[in-house]
Every structure is written in C-alpha cells, then in structure tokens.
C-alpha cells in the first residue's frame, strides 16, 4: 500500500516535473508544477511528516503557485519562442547536470540500501511546534523578519513612480 503510493507519486511527480520545465506555455508549466508539489506532499505524508504535507499544499500550491499563475496572467506572457542564436553551452551544462545527478542517485542507492525504519517520530503539528518554539525560536523569529523584508522589497520593486 505504502510502496504503491510512493511509486505512483514518484512517477506522476517526475512526469509532471518534466512537463513543468519543458512545456512552452507558462500556464501549463505552473499547473504541472502544482501536480509535482502535490506528489511531494504525498511523499511527506508517507514519511510521517503530516504537518509538512499540509503546509506544503497550503504554502506552495495554495499561495506561491497561485501567485505565479497570477503574474503569468497579469503579464499575459507569450509562449517562449525558440532561441534566436543556439546556446550550446547551456544545453551541454544542463545535460551534464542531469547525468551527474542521475549517477549520483545511483551511487547513493548502492550506499543506502537499507529500508526506512517503520516507526519514526511523527511530524505532528505539536511536535514541530515544540521544536519551533523551543530550540529553533531564534531562527523562527528571524524568518518572520525575512518575510517582512521580502514583502517590503517586493512592494518597492513594483511600485510605480509618480
């Protein structure tokens, strides 16, 4: 059951990730990334991180990608045209990176053959909350500062000068 869920989520997530970065239509890009993020959320749930799974959908799918979609529609961005000049460097670098990552994955799997422990600490909201308000309190407060800074920065960037 868990195994089937994992492989289903993995295959669907990877396929839609490929669509998300390769399709020419920006709206399709964003929507397939939603599917990928949903599959990642399923994986979190399988790993016992139920709070993260909910937060992933709430933050990523519910807020961040809606913002993306909003900007795509606001700019009414046209479909990407083929490059005017060929760019062999980027293409080579991209393919090399994919290969390296795939090879790295294979190396890792040979090193990490053990199964995950069936019982682990459950990432419930209480457990995460205790960590956030305890040992990670400073980082937690700092993140709110970061968000505030980002908000002010974004406002300044898009503000029209009169």
């Amino acid at each position, binding site marked *: 059951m868990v195994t089937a869920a994992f492989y289903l989520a993995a295959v669907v997530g990877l396929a839609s990730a490929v669509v998300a970065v390769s399709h020419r239509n920006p709206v399709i890009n964003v929507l397939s990334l939603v599917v990928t993020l949903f599959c990642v959320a399923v994986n979190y749930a399988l790993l016992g991180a139920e709070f993260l799974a909910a937060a992933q*959908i709430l933050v990523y799918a519910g807020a961040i990608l*809606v*913002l993306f979609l*909003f900007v795509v*529609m606001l700019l009414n961005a046209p479909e990407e045209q083929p490059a005017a000049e060929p760019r062999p460097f980027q293409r080579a670098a991209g393919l090399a990176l994919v290969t390296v990552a795939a090879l790295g994955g294979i190396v890792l799997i040979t090193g990490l053959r053990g199964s995950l422990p069936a019982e682990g600490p459950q990432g*419930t*909201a209480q457990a995460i909350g205790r960590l956030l308000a305890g040992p990670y309190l400073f980082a937690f407060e700092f993140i709110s500062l970061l968000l505030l800074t980002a908000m002010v920065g974004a406002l300044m960037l898009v503000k029209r000068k009169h």
Partner: protein
Amino acid sequence: MWASLAVTASKLVVVAGSVLTSVAVMEWVERRGAAFIQDRLGPNRVGPLGLFQPIVDAVKLLFKEDITPSSVNKGLYYLAPAISVFVALVTFIVIPFGAGKDVQVFGVPLGGLIVAPDLGVGILYLLALSSLGVYGIVIAGWSSNNKYSLLGGLRSSAQLISYELSMTLAVLGVLLATGSLRLDDVVAYQATHLWNVIPQFIGFVVFTTAVFAETNRLPFDLAEAETELVAGYHVEYSSMKFAAFLMSEYINMTTASALIVTLFFGGWTFPGMQHFSGWWLLIASVGAFLVKLAFFLWLFVWVRWSLPRFRYDQLMRLGWKGLLPLATLNLVWVGAAMAMRWI
C-alpha cells in the same frame, strides 16, 4: 479492519449525500428566499411551494446542449469544473457533524460522526485543500480564452489570496484557545467552556466576512459580477459544466457554514446535552448541528439579496486594511486572555 472500513465508507456516503442534497435544497431556499425578500412569489409551480423546482432545474441543465467554444484550451477547459467540485467535496471530511463516541453499529464503534477522526492536521487539511479551489476558477478564466473570463479569474485569485490570510488568522485564535488542530477537540472544548463566539467575537466577524469572500458570494462576488463581467469566469460554460460551478459554490457555502458553526458556535453541542446519551444524543446532536447550519446558510442568502456589491478597490482595502488588522488584534486578545486565565 473491514468493519471499520465499512463504517468510514458509510460515513463518507452519508456526508457526500447530504452535502449534495444541500445543493438542491439551497437552490430552492435561495430562489424562494430572494422572492420573499423582494416581495415576489418565486418558483411555485412544480410541486408544493415549488419544492421540486431543483429537480426540474437539474434535468434542464443535464439535457441542455453542451457547447465547447472552438478557441478554448480543451484539456484545461474540461478540468476546471472538475477541480472546483472535487475540492469542494473533499473538504467536509474533517468536520464533526454529531456526537456518537459511545455508539456502536453491529459491534463496531462509530468513533464520532466525523469521516476522518484520526487526521491530526484536521483544520489545516481543510484550509490546504480549500486553498486549491482557486485553481478551478483561475483555470476556467484562463482556458476560456475570453477577456471577461480572464478578468474574473484574475480578480478571484487576488481576492482569495487576500482573504485567506484573515480567515486563517481568525481560525488561529480558536486553535490557540483549544490547543489542537482537530475540529473534534474544538467542539469538545466548547462543550465545557463558553462558545468561542463570545470571547472571540472579533474573530467570528472576521471569519464570517472572509468566508463570504472565499465563497465568491455577494457582496464579494467580484469574480462573477454579472453586471460588469457578464458572468465572470464561467461565461463560456454551459450545461452540466456550468452546473458544476454552481454546485461547487453551494457546497462551499455549506462547508463554510459548517465551519462557522464548528469553530464559533459549539458545533453539535447544545445546552442540556448531559441529559442525553447513546443514540438519543447522536440524533439530538445532529439535529442541533443542522439547525445552526441552516441559520448560517440562510444568512448567506439573506446577505446576498440585501447588500450591493463592493467595488474592487474597496474589496482590497477592506481585506488588507480592515480584516487583517482586526484578525491580528483578535489573536493578540486571545493570547492575552489566555495568559491572564480569563478564558
């Protein structure tokens, strides 16, 4: 294993069935209620008091010609109504709609009238999935390839993001008082304390206003705004696909009302509850829940036919400069009151 699975499945069927029935009932209530408020008769030809009108409407919508405009993005155009209905339907499973902890069916404990009692993230699940509802509207607006649809979709995405913040902050006040994300615990807390609406009245006002915006109902139906955008995001939809959007709006209304009842009005609890037990408690609690639910559903209809629509900048100003500070104030108040042990 199989017995508990069967219990969960039957709870699911009951919930889905009642929620879908509420669509038909609410359609009748809305049309008769509008007529009552506007001093007209309303639909009164089909059945007693026009009660069978929803059936007739459904048949009409089913048999209407299903037009797909040639310029739409086909896949997404078909996907959008499906997303809307799906998201509306799956959110109800974390809402407890009756007592029943001590009731057994054929020896299997019922575990309370809630489809997913073991979901620890409870309300977070509901918020997460309902935040996906915006995709149905945005995709419909974009894939229709129509400027009115696109404007409706854009407006609604901005509106939903803005009001989701205040809504979540208002919910946070309740969660702070309860100390749990499960709606079961929220109800249990209110059974022994005051209903949350009294200590957290600001939170209740903010939450109710925000869910009106979240369900795209008047006075916040800027996404549809039939007088300026024709019909907003669903201009190009006809027949059953149009009906799907209508259904999701009414299902969302039911979920929103159930959420208001659960968070602020004690859920299925009622005064004098301790005199009941077993099946009687179950029946009485479901009845209490339905009465409260009906009141808030009527409130939705009442407001819709009483208030004019906001202008777009007024809507944004209300959301960001009115509700958000109020919701924060409520959160500070709840925190302070808890620290002083007042609630």
